[in-house]
């Protein structure tokens, strides 16, 4: 649905209007009056490798850059962008194995809700839950050039909608720097595809790899607070 630019824009506007409405009806203290955080986040699966096979070793990381603005005592709303790089092993129609890079870029909105009622912390510090809804674009780059007979490198560009959910805790160092640690899980819409398990199409291959990659991660990040 988000492929429709109009619909995607509507969603984003709706979320910001929601945030703006919350601002009108509640006082927003932020942290010492600072309501914005620019943060850099890195997430990684507990196994720091793409897979167990030869050639698949490498850091299993996802880099994120985000901005969040506190909109009430328990919510903050913002934008986020991720960059993911991983590898996947495929078998072509001749049953030959090959290796392909999966490059993915994602951008979307994030909403944090802090445990204001349960724990008593006020946004943007303390334990939180976070939901991210992102438009995700990924492409497969064939390293061995065996997938297609013509040996082309680009196996295709694909779009999807990704969701992540995270729980963690955020703290402040001094008055300007924030840090956060937590765990994150996520998935993509393509998991609902009927041919998801059996298909060897590049888009499904890439999606399957990304879904495994997103399924469980530890995350940590640092941020900068400003008014």
């Amino acid at each position: 649905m988000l492929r429709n630019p109009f619909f995607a824009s509507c969603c984003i506007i709706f979320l910001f209007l929601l945030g703006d409405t919350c601002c009108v009806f509640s006082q927003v203290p932020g942290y010492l009056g600072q309501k914005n955080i620019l943060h850099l986040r890195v997430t990684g699966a507990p196994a720091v490798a793409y897979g167990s096979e030869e050639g698949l070793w490498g850091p299993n990381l996802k880099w994120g850059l985000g901005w969040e603005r506190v909109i009430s005592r328990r919510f903050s709303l913002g934008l986020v962008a991720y960059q993911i790089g991983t590898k996947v092993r495929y078998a072509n129609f001749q049953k030959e194995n090959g290796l392909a890079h999966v490059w993915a870029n994602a951008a979307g909105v994030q909403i944090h809700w802090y445990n204001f009622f349960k724990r008593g912390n006020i946004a943007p510090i303390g334990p939180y839950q976070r939901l991210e809804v992102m438009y995700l674009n990924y492409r497969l780059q064939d390293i061995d050039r065996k997938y297609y007979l013509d040996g082309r490198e680009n196996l295709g560009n694909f779009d999807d909608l990704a969701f992540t959910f995270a729980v963690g805790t955020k703290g402040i160092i001094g008055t300007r720097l924030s840090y956060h640690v937590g765990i994150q899980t996520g998935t993509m819409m393509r998991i609902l595809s009927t041919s998801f398990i059996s298909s060897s199409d590049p888009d499904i291959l890439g999606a399957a790899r990304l879904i495994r990659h997103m399924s469980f991660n530890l995350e940590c990040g640092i941020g900068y607070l400003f008014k």
Partner: protein
Amino acid sequence: MKTWVYAFVGYCILFGAVGAQVFHDDHRLSSQGPIPPAFLLSSQSKVARALDQLPDDEPQEVRDLKSDFYEESYYYTNKLLHSGKVLFNDPVSTYLSDLIDRLLIHDPALRAQIQVYAVRSSNANAFATNQGLLLVNLGLISRVNNEAELAFILCHEIAHFSRQHPIDIYLQGEYRKEARKNILGKREEYPLFERKQYSQEKEQEADLVGWELYRKTPYDYQGALGAFDLIQTAELPFGNTDFIPEFLEIKGLRFPDSYTRATIPEMTPLQVDTVPDVGTHPSTSVRKKYLSDRIAAYGLRPSGTFFLLPEKRFFRIREVARFELCHLYLQERAYEPALYHAFLLSQRYPKHQILKETVAYALYGLAKYANQGQFWDVHKDYSVQNGPERKLYYLMEQLSPDELTTLAMLHSLECWQNRGTAGRMAAMTRDLMRELGIHHVTDVDYFSPNVSGGEPDNFVQNALGDLYQDSAFLRLLTLEIRNGKSIRENRLKKEAYRLPRTYLQRELALKGFNLGLKKIVLVEPYYQKYDERKEKSIRYLESEEKEQNMLQTLEKHASACGIQHISLASHLLDASDVASFRDLAVLNEWFNEQGLHQGVDMISTNHNEIYRLRKKYQCDHFVWVGTFSTVTKRRNAAFIVGAGVVVFPLLPIALYYGLTPAHETMLYASIYDIKTGKYVLQFPKKMRLKDKDDLMNSVLYDLMYQISYP
């Protein structure tokens, strides 16, 4: 010759004025002059100094135990000193100090270590700390019969200090716990009986050492024995005059005979003697007998000396303490004891304005509680009363809430008229008139006199007497009754349309309070850290440090939120800031009093003083902030770690959960509007988090933000 006569007359006038001033002045006892160093030093510096004085060869375990004792003892002593309850350079403390000078005239070294102060407490008690502070409650001074009795009590307390009993009892307790650990495998409180026994031994030792000190003075030995009689009757009033109900009759209000029929039992001493081992002190009769035996062994004869300082001074000081005692009872919600003691004093000072105001306030308190249906919170059953005050308790029990309110209103009105100025009495009178409108009366006709000549159904009908002809009074009464009625109607409306409490709390928590205040007074914050995993759970020195830091944080955030603020805290004072110290004392008193009246909207006893502070600081809003931070063991930690092993990706979180303790931080803030005498905000915030700097910064900033946000 003429010059001498003039000089003599002048002296008499001056002396009379000074002598009378102490208890004819409206101002209550308060601290004067420079603040003594003991009030200004922090517990941290006191502990450091005490540890420096320990001998170098002291074993480390003993040193640690002593350090624990110093921390606890200095912390609580400082809390007491900063509360404003302890008076310095006032007439009573000065008198006590002069008395100690006489007692220790031959031991200047010991005298130099001792400081004595009066404490604003109604309990008949005195105590000594390990640092040489002798604290004597006004409740005790108001009950002593002569200086010799007081001198013996002081000698007893000096003995506690000179023999270092407080630390001795503490160390003994710790050693015995350790001994039990060797036997039972764990440290454990040693049995109550043993503990009390050891304390009782020390009390007997203090009696003995105190007696030796007392014996060196010219006082009559009867003074020492009299002190024990005093202890036995410590809970009883200082007089034994039958209460006369007519004392409370006013204007046209006359009590029916049925209201005054209580029979009066004989006054009996306290019953503690029958169970000698319950307290930390031995049985009084045992102590008295022990001392009597020693006196007999010495073959002493009565010296007839009961006063070394001028006798007149003693009685003046005792009278001051008795007047103050009435006020203390009012603050403690002990309205009937306040009434009875005011009655006793009025036998000597029948027209004294302070006594009349004491009576008016005591009746006001009883009426307010009765109207709220909480009369029994402040009243004790007349049948368990021990002495001549029983008739008073019986009378109060018979009066219905409307009768009590009318009675209180008339007494307040009389005090207001006598004073002629607006203030506490005026506010109370109007409040009581409103109370009539809220709870009992719809119109002033309720008070129309019974003209038929027969017995009225309700004696309140004739209560106003000639006031019923006073048009100004009737106008005011009509107005306030009408106000009261509208308050009642508003309350009923609110009840009818009340949203669920949880919903309101949730909404308020999310949206904030929007107080829009521009100026506040930050009153000494409170911080206490507990570590429940440890045997000594309170972290005293850390708590004190956090208190000071919290005030700085509050000041910083108040400035950031654009609030003008004035800070009143004991650690900010220097020796010359006695005025601020007194202000703090008044505020603490007021705050504690408000805390007692849960659910009853009362005008405070120090209403006038609080109004003075309002003018002084040009601010209506006073803010109290406190924090309690606790660390406890986690429940089910082992289970969570086990679950983490099974669901291995969650192991880091499970380990973190299992290996770290649980934290809880409770922040409360109370903001009072002095002008209305009501809470503007009561802000309890419970956080299941550690009181780290960022969290505290966040919530304290939020608090200031809510205060400032329009």
